[in-house]
């Protein structure tokens, strides 16, 4: 036995290494499966031929819910609200966040450290606290809750994400390029428009996409600032007690597919730029 254990580790080493990494490989796929399971169920039950409003048991395959997608008026309106708020948030937060990102990446100024801490705090702050703080503010200022308060809230929590994405890109740029443009007689605005902006555009684009995704998905902050206005996540939340209709699954599926398609296109675009 003692002689065996003396030689064994050397000969066994290779196979053991392989099984270790194989186990990790299997583990990784199991986790990915776990992550995808509820999505798969959601997509599947969008095709469920359910008779009642309750979409809980499988009753056969159908496309009919795709045809009757906009049958529930409130739900359609909620989705419209979500899309509109998402779009406006992308534009406004994209613009403001880009400016902050450039400022943080390019210049040194007073309060920069504080701004970094604030961005950090805003990202790591609990959503419920942001929502509660905003609601408190709106109540004390007597601002009526609704579409505009949701928009203000969404712009606010999306800005840090955009500015960090842009800042990361700005840090990689060579300042000499902008100086060269200025030496060639370009004004500040022309330099920005023709030199800086095209170079940071991929980051602005992915920051904007992130803002859109965050906005359309947000529930907690919206829940606090919405008043009686309903967005897509809020509508689903409201429908849980009664059981959500298959249209919700279909809309979820469509958003999922569109999101994945956009992300893949964005990745392909980035890869082609790099190549």
């Amino acid at each position, binding site marked *: 036995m003692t002689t065996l254990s003396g030689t064994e580790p050397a000969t066994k080493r290779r196979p053991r*290494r392989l099984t270790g*990494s194989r186990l*990790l*490989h299997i*583990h*990784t796929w199991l*986790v*990915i499966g*776990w*992550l995808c*399971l*509820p*999505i798969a*169920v*959601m997509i599947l039950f969008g095709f469920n031929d359910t008779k009642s409003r309750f979409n*809980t048991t499988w009753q056969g395959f159908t496309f009919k819910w795709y045809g009757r997608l906009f049958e529930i008026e409130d739900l359609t309106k909620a989705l419209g609200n979500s899309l509109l708020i998402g779009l406006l948030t992308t534009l406004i937060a994209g613009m403001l966040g880009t400016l*902050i990102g450039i400022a943080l990446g390019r210049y040194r100024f007073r309060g920069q450290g504080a*701004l*970094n*801490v*604030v*961005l*950090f*705090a*805003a*990202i*790591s*702050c*609990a*959503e*419920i*606290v*942001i929502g*509660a*703080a*905003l*609601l*408190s*503010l709106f*109540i004390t200022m007597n601002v009526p809750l609704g579409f505009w308060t949701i928009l203000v809230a969404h712009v*606010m929590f999306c*800005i*840090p*994400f955009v500015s*960090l*994405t842009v800042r990361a890109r700005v840090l990689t740029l060579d300042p000499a390029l902008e100086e060269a443009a200025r030496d060639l007689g370009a004004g500040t605005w022309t330099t920005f428009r023709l030199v800086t902006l095209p170079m940071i555009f991929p980051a602005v684009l992915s920051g904007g996409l992130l803002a859109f*995704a965050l906005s359309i*998905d947000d529930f*907690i902050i919206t*829940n*606090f600032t919405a008043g009686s206005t309903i967005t897509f*996540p809020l509508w*689903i*939340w409201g429908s*849980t007690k009664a059981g959500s209709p298959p249209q919700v699954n279909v809309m979820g599926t469509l*958003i*999922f597919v569109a999101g*994945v398609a956009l*992300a893949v296109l964005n*990745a392909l675009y980035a890869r082609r730029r790099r190549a």
Partner: protein
Amino acid sequence: MPMFVMLSLSLQQGDVVEGYRLTWHWQTYIEGIRTYDEQIIRSLGYGLAACLLQLAIGYPMAYWIAFHGGSRKSSYLFLLLLPFFVSFVLRTISWHFVLADDGIVLGTLKGFGLLPEDFHVLATTGAVIGGLAYNFLPFMVLPLYVALERIDPALIEASYDLYASRVQAFLRVIFPLSLPGAFAGVLMTFVPASSDYVNSSVLGGTHNTMIGNVIQNQYLVAQDYPIAAALSFTLMALLLVGIFLYARALGTEDVLEASAR
């Protein structure tokens, strides 16, 4: 800058309490904490449990993607992020649906007689912690992955050259170097998990309410603003103390970098 407004906003929250009563009515805080101490402790406990679970699940995954992912690393990361393309509420409801007492998993197992009829997963502590772990897992894996990816392979080879075994190389080299990522991951998952109220109300039934449920209820249903503001201020103070201790000790760069990805 809008972010400064945000900071002042979260500070003003305390003022709302005082403004409402017009006196420095700290009693509300004491009252709130005393009434809901159970929920506060439960929230922190659930957040911690979800965090540890995510660390246990996420670390091996991040390790494998970082060191064995090869050329398909980004594809794996993309798969990891897939759930984010489905609304957070919808994901949680989908779990409710999967785990329902007569749903597709339990219903089928019960149909085959593999589980007793009265067995249920929903409305248990495990369901809430599982839901929390599920929803925030990518926030744990990404910072871990970033930290592991950044380790210079030469360091690991050097440890082998110095006769370290695989276990020693992991414990003495890889693990310490991945700690900043682990801390960032813990921070990014603990904060949303312990303040969440969606999972506990969809998956937890009536016996697993967390402090988030109380705050939401006091604000939006009971409309008792002073106590709600006091509670959310307490929650923020608890979390902020942790965050700033963290920032002082380890710097903000890792989290900012991870969230910029």
